[in-house]
């Protein structure tokens, strides 16, 4: 008897592929939520191209910010359906990539990773969002660069300090680019201010923080480690009162 392992193996592979089951229309989607959208929803369509039913064992998102849902637990031969992935945008910015892992009882491809890419438009890019002075340090001006995000045109911005202890001045440094100078009146007291930055004709508000901190602590010295206060609590700089503001 002449054995041909190669032929045997190939026929075995062919048998496996012949009963290939869940076929995905696409395993990755790119979403472009509009400004102000709270969620981005991706639809991953599939079809059971096999001859046996497929059961979903689990549908698991990579991040708590994404909820993934299957329309059904079982997909019969020839049936179609979709997995819906809802990504909660929250305060996220830029390109976000989240995955959903789908596990089925198929003999092959038991795990499929679906990728949801959301490109969240960012009207203003601010760097840095935090400026600080050590207590007793010279009260020099520190600058924050603000520039309009891709696809946005911003001619003016308004900067408001929640505390009159910090002065702000806005300068236009180029098309859609601004420099915000921040200066404390003094650095002898521990104080903080939330700087509210807003582009003209836009409801979206951006924030930066200015603060006078204590000097660095020596190793082993007592530390300030507090559980977060309730929003607007004693550790949080007040928001949104606006005693001082600068517009450009």
């Amino acid at each position, binding site marked *: 008897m002449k054995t041909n*392992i190669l032929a045997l193996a190939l026929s075995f592979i062919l048998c496996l592929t012949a009963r290939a089951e869940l076929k995905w229309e696409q395993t990755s989607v790119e979403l472009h939520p509009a400004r102000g959208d709270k969620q981005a929803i991706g639809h991953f369509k599939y079809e059971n191209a096999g001859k046996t039913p497929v059961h979903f064992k689990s549908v698991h998102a990579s991040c*708590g910010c994404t909820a993934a849902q299957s329309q059904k637990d079982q997909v019969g031969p020839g049936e179609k359906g979709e997995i819906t992935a809802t990504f909660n945008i929250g305060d996220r910015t830029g390109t976000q990539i989240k995955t959903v892992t789908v596990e089925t009882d198929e003999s092959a491809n038991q795990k499929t990773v679906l990728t949801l890419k959301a490109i969240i438009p960012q009207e203003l890019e601010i760097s*840095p969002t935090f400026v600080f002075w050590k207590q007793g340090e010279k009260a020099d001006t520190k600058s924050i660069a603000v520039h309009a995000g891709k696809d946005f045109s911003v001619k003016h911005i308004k900067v408001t300090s929640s505390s009159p202890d910090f002065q702000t001045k806005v300068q236009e440094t180029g098309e859609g680019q601004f420099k915000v100078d921040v200066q404390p009146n003094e650095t002898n007291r521990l104080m903080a201010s*939330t700087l509210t930055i807003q582009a003209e004709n836009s409801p979206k508000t951006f924030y930066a923080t200015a603060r006078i901190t204590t000097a660095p602590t020596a190793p082993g010295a007592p*530390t300030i480690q507090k*559980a977060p206060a309730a929003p607007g*609590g004693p550790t949080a700089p007040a*928001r949104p009162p606006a005693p001082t503001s600068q517009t450009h």
Partner: protein
Amino acid sequence: MKFSLARQALILAALSLLPGVGQAIYFRDKISWQSPIPPSEMVSVDRAREWGDGVIWIDARPDEEFARDHVPGAVSLNEDRWNELLPQFLAAWLPGKKTIVYCGAQSCDLAREVAERLRKEAQLPDVFVLEGGWEAWVKKNR
């Protein structure tokens, strides 16, 4: 005959390698065993313990998980409410202190993303991600 069998076995072995090699090349940036965080930006629970009081802990998990339990003294900072929570963290931050961010487990991305924003947007130095996340901390401390 023997030679023919060996050759066929070799061909089969080579063929079986092909999908693996192809996948490794195609998904080279997404290989699960490769951490996207450089080792210099990570810290183990033991090392964090050595730093003692010189650390500010950040819990990057969602609010409900933070409310359930967290590292003592940790500040909640997640991207769901970044604009609201960041000023609260910055009010507790001190120059010279190290910041350690953690999320649920080794596999979660939240800590890496929060750490990245703190470095890039707030330009804070000494921001680290806890190896193994909350699970690792619980294992060593409870």
